[in-house]
Structure formats: structure tokens, C-alpha cells
């Protein structure tokens, strides 16, 4: 053994599940006596079925002796001997050997940040309503709690029919953009990647422009626009992916990004052409491009929530895989990942969610870049922390940005894209200065 074994103290008294004897156990601390006993997988499985904890030294040694005599009596070339390596008899891993994930303190902070910004956003408006009574009103809608709302009927309507859909939509969109941004950065190992990288923005812009310009008279463009923008976004990314793959670029992320640039340039050209032909649409296309939640209602929330829920769940489940991908394609493949398929799956999930978000909110820049990078700078670069925290912080950030958008020039609204960029651009300059640390 390379390591010099220190005698571990054996602070815990345990009862052996096999023989009932009392024994001392270091409970996962390094250097425990159990680390010197090696057993085969099959034997360990047998022991784990017996007890979910360590056994006493006598019993474990007994198992080891039995293995030795088994292998002597067997044919010496018994394949079972060489097919499975031996394992420690130790049952409890040391606490240092773990993936950190989300540090609990940061997790609590992020949840409080989201709840706080939701409450704040519900309370702020032309008619001010106390955050406390809103919280009470919210709890009164939950069953089994028997709390009574102190709000008047009008106030209830203002909070739950006018402000809430807008606030919830902003939270959903913000969380989605931030988590897909961090997924794109992971999958392309490029700190500057954002959710619009592969033609989502250009595709959605084209779709929205077409809907506004060519919506048949009588139909309401408001209903057609989200669907058209969604379809355009998906089309844009599909084209970029197919183009990238046709030039063999799926293994090489640079080629895929270039394909996205090509597709985006083409779609933007078409969009500009259509706008030139229908100059009366310029204003509505422009205001859509800048993004906003001015017309949000519960219908929008119901429309996008399923997409965002599925997509965010899939992305969250990939947080460990994204850490594996951070080792590079070659090493990830040597660890058993089908890198091409994984990348496609993550891009599809991130794109579907982003496209749904864009469809109801327009193009809101910077959220997908500044939120993940803030988390990286403050907490950790491991995707196990970045993914869940981005989701929460992105939601809270966009809710607050929307509050700014609708209050600073009240009663008129600032496009939310202006707000996020106004705060995002200076922040991004700082991120760039630190990009060595963020190193993809």
C-alpha cells in the first residue's frame, strides 16, 4: 500500500448484523480496519442483503476466508476470479468523497431570492398591495391551511388575474433561458454560448415576422404569433444541426456553431426582406423582438408551462453528464458516453424550452449568459450546482427585470430586453475579464 495507514479511532459501537457481537467502527473515516479486507462483488452483495452497514471484523474476515477457500477448490482459471475486481468490505464511504452539488446555503439563498422577487413583483404596481397580505392570500388558496385572505375582491383580481400571470410567465421564461444557456455552454464548452446560439433567435424572429405580415385578415395575429415563432425557432435549430452534421461537424462543436451562424444570417435576411415588403409591420415586429410580458395572461402560462417543465427536467437530469462532457468529447467517450447522442438530446431539450419561452416573450437577451456565469463565479463551475441554481436565479432575475420594465416609465413600458441588456452588458464585460477563470 502506498498510503501509510493511520490508526483510525473507532468512535462508534455497533452490533454486528451477522453474529450480534459488539464492535468498534470508524463509520466511513479513513484508515478503519475494514479497509484492509477485500471481498468479491458477489460476497459483498450477500453481505449488503444481510445488513446495510459494516459487519464485525470476525464475520468479515470469515467471509474473506471463505472466498479464499472457494477459489482454491475451484479451477484456478475460474473466470469469476478475474472478471470482477475485488472491493472494500467497507460499507460507508468517507464524506470527503462525494460530488458537492448545490451547497445548501446557496440553495436556500436561491429559493428565498425567487420567492422574494415573486412577492415583490406581485406587490409592486399602480395600486400598492402589501407583500404580507399577498403571501396570506396565496396561502389561503392552498387547501388544509385555513388561512383567510385579507385582500378585497378587487385586490384579489389585480393580484391573481393581472399581475400573477405576468410574474409567473417571467419566472418560467427566465428560468428556462438561464438553464438552457448553461446547458449550451456545457455542451459546446464555450462560455459565450447562449440559448439563441444555433438559430433559435433568427428562426423565431422570422416566424414572428411572417405571422405579423401574413396573418390572414380576421384571424388574430396574437394567437398565431407564438406558434409561428415556436415553429421558426425549431426550424432554425434543425437546419443548423443538419447543416453541421452534413459537413461532419457534430463531433466538432466549432462547425456546429458556424452552421448556426450561417442559418441565422440566412433567416435574418429573409426576415428583413419580408419587413421591407410590409413596412407597416415594422413597429410590431420590432416591439416583439425586444421582448416583454405586457400581454401575458394565464393562457400563455398554460401554453408554455408543459414545454418548459419537460425541458427543464431533462436538462436538470443531465447535470452530471454535463460535468463528464467538460472533460472533452474524447474523454467523455472513453468513459462510455455516446457524445453525439448526448449532445443532440441536450440541444433538443434546451431548444424546445427556449423556443417555447421565446414564443410568448420575444427575444430576451443576456439572461442565458449572465445568470449561469454569475452562478459559476459565486458558487461553483460544476454543472450539478450551475444547472439548478441557474434555473432559480434566472427566474428571480427576470421577474425583477420585468418589474423594472413596467415601473420606471410607468404607465408606459420599457422593453424587457432593454432592461436585461442594460444590466447585462456591463456585467458581461466583467465576466469577459474573468473568462480565464471560467475557461471552457
Amino acid at each position, binding site marked *: 500500500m502506498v498510503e501509510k495507514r493511520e490508526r483510525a479511532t473507532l468512535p462508534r459501537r455497533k452490533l454486528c448484523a451477522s453474529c450480534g457481537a459488539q464492535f468498534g467502527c470508524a463509520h466511513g473515516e479513513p484508515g478503519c480496519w475494514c479497509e484492509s479486507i477485500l471481498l468479491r462483488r458477489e460476497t459483498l452483495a450477500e453481505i449488503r442483503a444481510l445488513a446495510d452497514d459494516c459487519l464485525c471484523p470476525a464475520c468479515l474476515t470469515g467471509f474473506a476466508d471463505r472466498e479464499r477457500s472457494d477459489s482454491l477448490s475451484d479451477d484456478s482459471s475460474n473466470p469469476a476470479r478475474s472478471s470482477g475486481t475485488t472491493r472494500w468490505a467497507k460499507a460507508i464511504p468517507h464524506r470527503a468523497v462525494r*460530488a458537492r452539488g448545490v451547497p445548501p446555503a446557496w440553495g436556500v439563498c436561491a429559493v428565498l431570492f425567487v420567492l422574494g422577487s415573486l412577492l415583490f413583483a406581485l406587490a409592486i404596481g399602480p395600486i400598492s398591495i402589501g407583500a404580507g397580505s399577498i403571501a396570506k392570500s396565496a396561502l389561503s388558496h392552498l387547501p388544509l391551511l385555513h388561512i383567510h385572505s385579507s385582500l378585497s375582491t378587487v385586490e384579489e383580481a389585480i393580484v391573481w388575474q393581472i399581475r400573477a400571470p405576468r410574474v409567473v410567465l417571467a419566472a418560467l421564461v427566465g428560468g428556462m433561458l438561464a438553464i438552457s444557456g448553461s446547458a449550451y455552454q456545457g455542451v459546446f464548452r464555450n462560455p459565450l454560448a447562449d440559448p439563441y446560439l444555433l438559430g433559435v433567435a433568427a428562426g423565431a424572429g422570422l416566424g414572428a415576422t411572417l405571422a405579423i405580415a401574413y396573418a390572414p385578415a380576421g384571424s388574430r395575429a396574437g394567437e398565431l404569433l407564438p406558434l409561428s415563432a415556436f415553429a421558426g425557432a425549431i426550424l432554425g435549430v434543425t437546419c443548423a444541426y443538419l447543416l453541421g452534421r452534413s459537413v461532419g461537424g457534430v463531433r466538432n462543436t466549432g462547425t456546429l456553431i458556424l452552421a448556426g451562424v450561417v442559418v441565422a444570417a440566412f433567416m435574418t435576411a429573409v426576415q428583413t426582406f419580408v419587413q421591407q415588403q410590409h413596412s407597416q409591420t415594422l413597429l410590431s415586429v420590432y416591439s416583439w423582438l425586444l421582448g416583454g410580458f405586457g400581454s401575458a395572461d394565464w393562457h400563455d402560462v398554460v401554453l408554455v408551462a408543459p414545454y418548459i417543465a419537460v425541458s427543464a427536467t431533462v436538462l436538470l437530469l443531465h447535470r452530471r453528464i454535463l460535468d463528464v462532457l467538460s472533460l472533452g468529447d474524447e474523454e467523455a467517450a472513453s468513459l462510455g458516453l455516446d457524445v453525439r447522442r448526448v449532445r443532440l438530446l441536450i440541444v433538443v431539450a434546451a431548444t424546445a424550452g427556449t423556443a417555447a419561452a421565446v414564443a410568448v416573450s420575444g427575444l430576451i437577451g443576456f439572461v442565458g449568459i449572465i445568470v449561469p456565469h454569475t452562478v459559476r463565479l459565486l458558487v461553483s463551475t460544476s454543472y450539478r450546482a450551475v444547472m439548478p441554481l441557474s434555473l432559480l436565479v434566472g427566474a428571480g432575475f427576470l421577474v425583477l427585470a420585468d418589474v423594472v420594465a413596467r415601473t420606471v416609465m410607468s404607465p408606459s413600458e420599457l422593453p424587457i430586453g432593454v432592461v436585461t441588456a442594460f444590466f447585462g452588458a456591463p456585467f458581461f464585460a466583467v465576466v469577459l475579464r474573468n473568462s480565464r477563470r471560467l475557461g471552457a
Partner: protein
Amino acid sequence: MSAALDIREVTVTLGRAQVVREVSTTVQRGEWVALIGPNGAGKTTILRALAGLVSFAGEILLEGRAVATSSRREIARRIALVPQHPQTPPELTVAEYVLLGRTPHIGYLATETRTDRLAAERAIARLALRPFAERPLGSLSGGELQRVVLARALAQEAQILLLDEPTSALDLGRQQQALELVDSLRRDEELTVVSAMHDLSLAGQYADRLLLLDRGQVVAEGSAHEVLSEASIAAYYGANVRVIHENGRVFVLPQRADPP
């Protein structure tokens, strides 16, 4: 019982160039085979083919199973590759990085179980990395990083270890320590080792068998005494060396040609 690796007339074509041409050899369980040869001889490409990372013509049997038809995960459970320049994200801790080696044993969207943490802990203890377990990779020295990468490969619990230039970034002492470590792992864990190596003296002293490659082909195969000759090294490396046989070992020393 099948050999650890059975390589039959393997040819790798990258672009239009045949980088590896009809290489055949058999590696027994527990054996250490070193691939030697000048730059561009195809050493790394052979390792990548063995790990299923590059498509090839011919056949590679990994413990009796064809690499070409195995899933990535099946290969990764049998073969661990330590690249020459591994990516070591500076903010991951040693424990987190070693746990990534468990990937072929963890369900696709699952996280590590206790078994995975114990396997990683054992690898960390085995390579004397316990004091570093919670340190970020960015704070480690080159020699320590080399051990961390080996620990990741060990946590993978594969029977075959592929090492691409395992000592290229290390000083003289660290080189010897690293190779001694690999050798002791090989004996304790019953591993099979295939390594690409530049230093011929070290290759000859640690490996059981040498495969000398030139332009993708095996031009000599056998023990250090058989493969390392002044004539062959001059022919394939274009190097002027003295080969010294002493105490049953072979030393290859570069020698400057007499000035004209």
C-alpha cells in the same frame, strides 16, 4: 480463456492517410505491452482504436468481444484510457473528478451510489490522494495530477489500462515513481497495461514486451533485448544512440555524432 486484447490486422484510415496498417498482436491478461516508435508512427491511434474511439478495419477483441460491435459503455467498463493531455477542469475537486471515472457504471441520468463512492474512495486511497480529496484540481502539481488521472482510471474498474505517454509531463524522478505505481497497480489489481512511450530505456525496463511501430506498421516485436538495437533505432528514429546491456537491462543513450 480469451486474451485481454486480440488485435487482428487492424488498419485505421484518417482522411486519406493510413495511419495504422495491418497491425496484429495479442496481449495476455496481466501483461504490459509498450508501443514505441517515432512521432507519427501511429501509437496514439492504436490506443484510440483499442478504446473504440476511432473506426478501423480488421478486428479487435476485448476479452473475447468485438470492440466494433460493443456499446461505448461496455467498452468503458473493460478498458480505461489515460490520454496524454487529460482535461482537468480546475475547479472540480479530486473526489469529484475521480467519481467521473464511475460514469460507465452509473445509469445514464442517475447519480453516484454508495458503491460508486466507495470505489472512488478506494482509488483515491490507493494512489495516496486522501489529503487532496477535497482540493480543486487547479491547485495540484503535475505529478499529483498524474496520480489523480490514474485514480480516475482505477475507479473505472476496467481490467485493461491504456496509457498514452504517461510520463511525458513529469521530471525524471516522477517518471520512475509513476511507472512503479502503474506496475504495482498492475500486479495488485491484475490489470493489463498497454502504453505508448517515448523513453526507450524506461519502456524496456517496465514493459514485458515492446512493439516498435513505424509509419503505422509493426516493424519489430519482442523483449527489450530483441527490439532495442542500435541499428533499428537508427533506422526508424533516425537517432544516433548507444544501446547498453547491463545486469539484464537495456539502456538506450543518445549519442552526439562526432563533429566533422
